[in-house]
């Protein structure tokens, strides 16, 4: 992330980073470290503590020709900006008859599993994905985190990038140096297989990989990493479903109207003849994200994924 921001601010001097504690402190996950020193306090702005104000002023900054990259300090602290997002960010281009662009990027640490107090663990992608006029990307690897963020910043439309916290902490992976752009709208087959497809995104991709490894003796498992939830790479999803005929979707967010529902609905409409069994979802529950001593039971686990896969294989 940090790398992508350095590259993008360097390459386009209309890019500007703003948010709470992004400047002096470099962000609570250090995503913006060094930017203020390198580009000055006007291009890496410590804002007042007001998320709706951050996104609302970003709309105005776009109208003044800037490409603001807004950080929300945590997933659940992005909720105050939903009003601006839904009423303005997603509609303003439309409202101007396409006359103006709103190339704002909204990024935030995302998801659970980090032993934090409440409201530091949410997976709010549904609120974003459901909002017209907005695009949504969720990387599952450090390289994609860099590449998707770069693509988001360069995109002419508003893009929300949700960065799984587990990536910040994950093992250091090789990240391509310099410019690295992963185009929006293209899924990644993270693992090839022929018997069953696990569809996942964000931190759930690594979980799917471990589940697939656990199933290695029983089935050849394919993993589709969605990467961009909107626009979705529907072809990649349908291709994998056509190949395996069995799909389990893994999602960390609460179940009802989660993104997994959309994936399942697409399959129920467009892959019905390919399916050899039900489309199963392994998801977070429709309850508040719990205190961390029981968060592992809330989150989709390898056991739950394996169990669902077995059910489907035996169907």
């Amino acid at each position, binding site marked *: 992330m940090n790398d992508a921001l350095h590259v993008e601010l360097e390459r386009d001097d209309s890019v*500007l980073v703003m948010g709470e504690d992004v400047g002096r402190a470099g962000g609570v996950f250090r995503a913006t470290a060094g930017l203020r020193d390198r580009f000055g306090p*006007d291009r890496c702005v410590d*804002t*007042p503590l*007001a998320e*709706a*104000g951050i*996104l*609302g*002023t*970003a*709309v*105005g*900054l*776009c*109208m*003044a*020709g*800037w490409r603001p990259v807004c950080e929300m300090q945590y997933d659940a602290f992005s909720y*105050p900006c939903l*009003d*601006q997002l839904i*009423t*303005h960010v997603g509609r*303003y*281009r*439309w*409202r*101007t*008859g*396409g*006359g*103006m*662009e709103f190339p704002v990027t909204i990024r935030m640490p995302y998801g659970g599993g980090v032993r934090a107090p409440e409201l530091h663990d949410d997976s709010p992608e549904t609120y974003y994905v459901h909002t*017209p*006029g907005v*695009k949504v990307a969720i990387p599952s690897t450090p390289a994609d985190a860099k590449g998707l963020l770069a693509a988001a910043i360069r*995109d*002419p*439309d508003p893009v929300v990038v949700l960065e799984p916290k587990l990536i910040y902490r994950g093992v250091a992976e090789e990240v391509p140096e310099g410019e690295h752009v992963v185009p929006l709208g293209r899924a990644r087959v993270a693992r090839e297989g022929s018997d069953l497809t696990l569809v996942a995104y964000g931190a759930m991709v690594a979980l799917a990989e471990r589940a697939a490894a656990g199933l290695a003796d029983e089935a050849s498992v394919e993993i589709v990493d969605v990467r961009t939830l909107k*626009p979705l790479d529907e072809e990649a999803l349908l291709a994998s479903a056509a190949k395996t005929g069995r799909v389990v979707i893994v999602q960390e967010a609460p179940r009802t109207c989660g993104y997994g529902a959309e994936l399942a609905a697409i399959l129920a409409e467009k892959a019905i003849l390919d399916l050899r069994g039900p489309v199963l979802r392994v998801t977070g529950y429709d309850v508040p994200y719990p205190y961390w001593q029981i968060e592992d039971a809330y989150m989709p686990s390898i056991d739950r994924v394996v169990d669902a896969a077995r059910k489907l294989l035996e169907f």
Partner: protein
Amino acid sequence: MAQVFPAERELRRVIGAGHSVPDRALEGVGERELLELYRSLVLLRTYDERSVVYHRQGRIGTYAIFWNHEAMQAGAVHALEEQDWIFPSYRESAIGLLRGMPASTVLSWWRGHPAGWWNPADYNVASICVPIGTHVPHAAGLAWGKRLAGEDAVAIAFFGDGATSEGSFHEGANFAAVMRAPLILFCNNNQWAISTPLDAQTRAETLADKAVGYGMPGVRVDGLDVLAVYEATREAVARARAGDGPTFIEAVHYRAAPHATADDPRVYIDLERVEEERQRECVGRYERYLRRLGVLSDEQAEQIRGEAAETMRRGIAQAEAEPAADVALLFEHAYADGRVAFASELAELRRLTGGTEAVEPDEGPEVQV
């Protein structure tokens, strides 16, 4: 630097009331400018009065009346340069007219026709903001962004007394102050938010007092005195241009017309007070002032009114002549590549519906704005 603390209490006034209250002198404003202001006032008044008629005739939909709000709009805009940006609420829907926007565009907006779209950059007038107060941060961001970019542009955001209760007003005002954004926060205090009176909205002694909490000057002005509004805004604009940050202007008057065409204020308002307020109507007041100065003749007044009426006649004719909106517009501007992204949806729609016909405002009870 202007005072920041405390905010003003007295209402600034320029226009007097004949012999009893003398007019105050206003520096640096010549005859041409005075007439230009008059032209703006008459144009807005004509727009508003005609719109109410058009609504009654079923030619436009629900409409937010701004009768007697013209002095604020004309006075404030007059203090701006062309490169300065205006952020209107629904109450200032026709403010683009003062920037050369065709009346048909605004009328189309109220007709629910996409010809009501405009590109804000063409007039430096942002889109009409419907959700209360949410455009205040936009204006703050634009002003801040222009300043960052080294461009000399000021922004003004119009909003009502009710809007000051919204979090977005608060956050936008604070951002503007912190960023020293060249912004004028223009509060149209008509003392009502639909049916909610000011004393159910705030316990502040004056709305200008809110400025203190943001560390910016708070100014109070008679909202029916176009010159006082102009002068106060001119001062605020000068401060903004000088890099001294935002100013809050509270323009005080009293809503003497329904909130919108769908509203029936009789159930909540004091009708006597309204009658009284209608007497203090701002266009006639300015006209009397001009006549006291001797700068407005009957012929001029006639001509200006005639021009405005003609603008409206042309405007409604053009708006009604707009071809039925194509359904492709559903998709075209949602994203930069909307037409491509929604090609199959559009194809399906075309298959099912063929063309589209223009839709007229519904019968049935009208919807409140």
